[in-house]
């Protein structure tokens, strides 16, 4: 039996150990933030010392080099478009696979399962060639279309819908509800926890994604935040790590805030079964 208030020696040791472990994650973040408020002389002369005062110069430099508002806007639009589309497409497809009987259902489900085996790094060369052929490289379409449908999302929605009793759908049909209304008006709200998790995980993944926006863009037309921040380092910053760390803070803050606010939903989505 565990007593919450009686602190045993073992319990105390565990707390101390856990605190030390947490430092392995907290110290790098703290160092990232502290570095971003330093000046170049401070970094060169006393690299390990905290900044003597909060200097916003690094942030000014980031905002002067990267059009942050525009880039963040592009990144948000891309991530929201992908996440919303995945949810909207998974519902009817999952409904057809879970609830409707028709010839070819097994085959359709098989195609979706097969797509689970193909990750983006295995498709980017041919997809790049395909987009190049129709002049869509370096456009929002090249960033969003390949992920507009999620095989995993469709699979998860199908599993969740399989647990919904047929009677609910039959009753709705008797009331004269259209299939459209059944899918989006009745089943959608019932699956809200699953769909919210799906949306958030997809948003966080694509907001942070570096690989796909990197290989599908050739100019700053639709350059996303992770790509811009990585470029900040490549543009010969040398020892100017305070600028790179300021960029890191700008890049990480939105997801960390979202994580703090929606921890419950994100954790549920990560766990199996």
């Amino acid at each position: 039996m565990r007593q919450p208030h009686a602190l045993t020696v073992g319990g105390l040791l565990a707390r101390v150990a856990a605190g030390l472990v947490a430092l392995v994650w907290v110290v790098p973040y703290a160092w990232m933030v502290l570095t971003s408020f330093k000046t170049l002389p401070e970094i060169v002369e006393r690299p390990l010392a905290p900044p003597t005062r909060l200097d916003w110069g690094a942030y000014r430099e980031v905002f002067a080099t990267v059009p942050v508002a525009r880039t963040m806007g592009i990144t948000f639009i891309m991530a929201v478009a992908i996440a919303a589309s995945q949810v909207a497409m998974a519902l009817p497809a999952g409904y057809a696979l879970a609830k409707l009987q028709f010839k070819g259902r097994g085959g359709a489900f098989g195609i979706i399962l097969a797509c689970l085996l193909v990750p983006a790094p295995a498709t980017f060369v041919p997809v790049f060639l395909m987009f190049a052929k129709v002049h869509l490289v370096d456009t929002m379409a090249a960033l969003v279309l390949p992920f507009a449908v999620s095989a995993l999302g469709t699979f998860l929605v199908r599993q969740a819908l399989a647990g919904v009793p047929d009677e609910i759908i039959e009753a709705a049909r008797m009331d004269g509800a259209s299939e459209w209304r059944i899918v989006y008006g009745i089943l959608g709200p019932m699956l809200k926890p699953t769909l919210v998790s799906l949306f958030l995980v997809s948003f966080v993944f694509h907001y942070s994604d570096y690989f796909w926006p990197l290989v599908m863009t050739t100019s700053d037309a639709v350059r996303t935040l992770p790509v811009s921040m990585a470029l900040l380092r490549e543009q010969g910053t040398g020892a100017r790590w305070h600028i790179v760390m300021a960029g890191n803070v700008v890049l990480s803050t939105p997801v960390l805030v979202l994580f703090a606010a929606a921890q419950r939903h994100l954790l549920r989505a990560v766990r199996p079964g």
Partner: protein
Amino acid sequence: MRPRSRWHPWGMLAPSLVLLVAFFIVPIGVAAYESFFSWDLLTPPRFVRTANYRALFGHGELLHVALRTLGYSAIVVTGTMSLGLAMALLVDRPGAFMAFVRASIFSAYVVSWVAVALLWMWMLDGDSGIVGQAIRALRGPGAPVLSVLGEPRWALVALAVVSVWKLAGYAMIIFLAELQSIPRSLLEAAALDGAGAWPRFRHVTMPLLMPTAAFVGTTTLVTSFQAFDVVRIMTQGGPARATELFVYAIYEQIFLDLSVGRASAITVVFFAMLLAIAGLQLRVWRSRDPVVR
């Protein structure tokens, strides 16, 4: 249930199926087709049969890339699993403080790989990085001033350690969920029988955690096998190709060497290895747990 019209199911599935087939199934075919051509994106493609494969295998280049990727994955998988399990056992306690510890560890999983890679580049910096200086101090006088990322012997290990830092929170959260589902009564019964902490862990907790360990291990293997961001940002495959992993090798072939054929051939081999891993994954899950999840 019967569909109201025989066209309904296909109408609902068509948008999803069309996009999935176009962006996941067709590309594999295109890659296989292009792998038999030599094409630099500028002049017309030339049919070269299996020359791309022979060149890649002949130089031993592809074998090295495959072994390097597997070596990196081996460190990432074992590190992530053991650290994730150890931390899960440690923080599986009530209270706000433990919740804070759990959240700090897991936060790295949420943050972008870009931020993690840049942050660690700075921390490993030999001149002024907080970890880089510690490493230099540990190695004593005469140690190279360079970052470990500049040393062929250590660069890949450094990338793997950074990846473990990023992924361990994911493993911890999954192990935690499973730990918390183990009935307390089971452990208490074992304690009443006189079993100490280690036998309780060894004979009660561990067998119950095996399916979860299989899940964490295989998903981490698949993730690490596709590593790209840390390589592209921290080392660009160097020094002396020491960190050239699969996806980076493909990227290099098409965007730096403009060799579509070679890039496609590596893609085909990469995909074949992913399928082999998926096969292994299914076998592991089936043997451990009747419910594949």
